[in-house]
């Protein structure tokens, strides 16, 4: 479980240069804040810039709603 943005960044940082497709499992996601979404956005954008993809596994209504509110759905490449 990731409780704050700093540790989320650490975990994502380990994956940023991963040449293979990265799959983020969000099934267990219970809470998300803007800081976390901001990180994910940067993560997805930077990987996309290098032609690398990020895939989402599972669905988290919390994440979907938050992304929609913040206008980040498409940037996160979330299923609309």
């Amino acid at each position: 479980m990731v409780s704050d943005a700093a540790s989320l960044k650490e975990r994502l940082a380990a994956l940023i240069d991963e040449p293979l497709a990265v799959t983020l499992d969000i099934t267990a996601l219970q809470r998300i804040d803007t800081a976390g979404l901001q990180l994910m956005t940067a993560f997805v954008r930077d990987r996309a810039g290098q032609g690398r993809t990020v895939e989402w596994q599972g669905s988290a209504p919390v994440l979907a709603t938050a992304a929609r509110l913040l206008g980040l759905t498409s940037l996160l490449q979330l299923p609309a």
Partner: protein
Amino acid sequence: MTIDLTQFHDAFFEESFEALDSMETALLKLDIGAPDKELINTIFRVAHSIKGGSATFGFSDIASFTHSLETLLDELRSGGMQVTLAMSDLLLKSVDVMRAMLRAVQHKQPINAQRVSDLQFDLELMIAQKNSAPAAAPAQATPVAEAPAPAPPAAAAPAPARWEIAFRPYAELFARGNDPLRMLRELAELGQLESTVDIGGLPAFAALDPQSCYLAWNLVLTGDVAESTIRQVFEWAEGDCDLQIRLTSPAPAMQTVASGQIEGAQPVAVPSAPVEPAPVPAAAPLALAAAAAVATKADAPAKPDAPVATVADSGSIRVSVEKIDELMNTVGELVITQAMLSQLGSKLEGPTAEKLRGGLAQLERNMRELQESVMRVRMLPINVVFSRFPRMVRDLAQRLGKQIELKLTGEQTELDKTVLEKIGDPLVHLVRNSIDHGIEAPATRTAAGKPAAGTVHLDACHRGGNIAVEVSDDGGGLDKDRILAKARDRGLVGPNDVLTDEQVYDLIFLPGFSTAEKTTDVSGRGVGMDVVRRNIKELGGKIELRSEHGKGSKTIITLPLTLAIVDGQSVSVGSETYIVPLISIVESMQLKAADVSRLSGRGEVFSFRGYYLPIVRLYELFGVEPRTKVLDEGLVVVAEGEGHQRVGLFVDDLLGQQQVVIKSLEANYGHVEGVSGATILGDGSVALILDVPGLIRAISMRAAA
């Protein structure tokens, strides 16, 4: 950039404690099942601001705890969870824990981590239980649309307002405990929200500081919403973001302005920037609006009604008590100088003297007003103390299995801050006594034909120059026989002494006296009423007890409004003047030689209303050469100390009654037994203010020696 944040700590603590008090009050008012939304908002705001503050100052334990609390409260606010009794208990406990944490941090002591984490676990558990509950998705139901919008609602008849909100948080927004997500969610509840994010400021992932906010939003909110409501959503972010709110015509097919354009048009938007005056001409096409904004902005200050909202300032300032005391002191000196001048002026002759006296009279009036105003600055409503009772009563009643209704009246009665601070503990004690001893168990009450729920009533009012605080209950009242039996048991009263009701009630003020059949952790340990009375006496007040068996009891506390001045009677002994506080004086009289008798071992006594009171010759006590040593040539002031102990103070003469400004002897010299302070008289001489209870103690100690 480093700013020394410690300078803000005191203000943070002070504000947080106050906020917690209001949170507690709100929690207690919260109805289970059908909570008032406004109350929940109040509670939420407190948790939110404490979280923000503690995050800013790096009190991570508090921030983390309040975060959990806030999440739970957020669920309550959004209606995702219901207020249950268990939850309200949990929230009240959280208030206690936050208070304890703040206090620990304030005094640089370790936080009781176990207690905190236990409670935090409970909070998280409660949230988790909700989350696992099926189909609780209020947020999902809210109409949120991803930008670009599917064409805003057609401009049908009463077209809803269309607000354009440019929200550009500063980097430190997150660190202050604010989450744009929460604000946007709130906005989405107000109407239809389209949000366009600007990620232009988002650095590369590796360079990104997870605690900084790099995003900005351009929002369009369509709905019947007032601007102030929108501002309220951003209230907590004020100072941490640039915010522009603009009402545009409800015309359809308008494109959201690109963020760059807004930036260009309004380069320096201040956090609380006055909003564009609401009615931008409805016809103005938005393409112009961005450019026009500059113009509108320029003339905005000229419009008297331009800046709305965000003027939430209540018009008060925080001033340290020392500053007020200093002011008070100076005013006291002024009063003395003025009295000196008046005395001097009254002796002058001639035509100018008359004018001078007129001026002096004016000065005296103004002085009195000034003194009263300064005094009022120190006054606070007694509510400050009363407000802690609802919680206490609730907890106690729960623990003792009694039903108690607390009634508070006269909360707005004002009294001096120093008095206020010292009255709290005695009142707590009295209320506890009422609940523990006074109010009977529900079954006993119903059997006696009383409502199952007992009432404890706290009342405050001004009475003359004093304030009266009453604690009454409709419980069983004091059991006179039991008190008397107990006193006889302990040899405090002789087996054959007959006591009046008053004297019997007085017994419970004796140290170590308790009639509680079994000692509870609430009261009954016998340390209490004597301490209560001592505290009240120290404040120059009186405490009185009335009780009716089976119907309840009432404690009346009479206190001076302030400790800074006292109403006194000046008396002369030889060349000296002494002040006897009026509150201690029962009567003044001239003795006849026949009234006086000598008792072996008790000195001189005189008969007063059927009792023999000792005579205290003040000149002997203070070593002054008096005008007369013959008792019937002088006067006797009958003064009362603790518990109806009375003495006759023998003085030369009575001079007059006046309000005197108390100067502390301790601060300037040292403690003197029997003297509570000093004052400076109109002629510049110093007079001692007698402390009658202390005086009586000193005398009886001398007699015993």
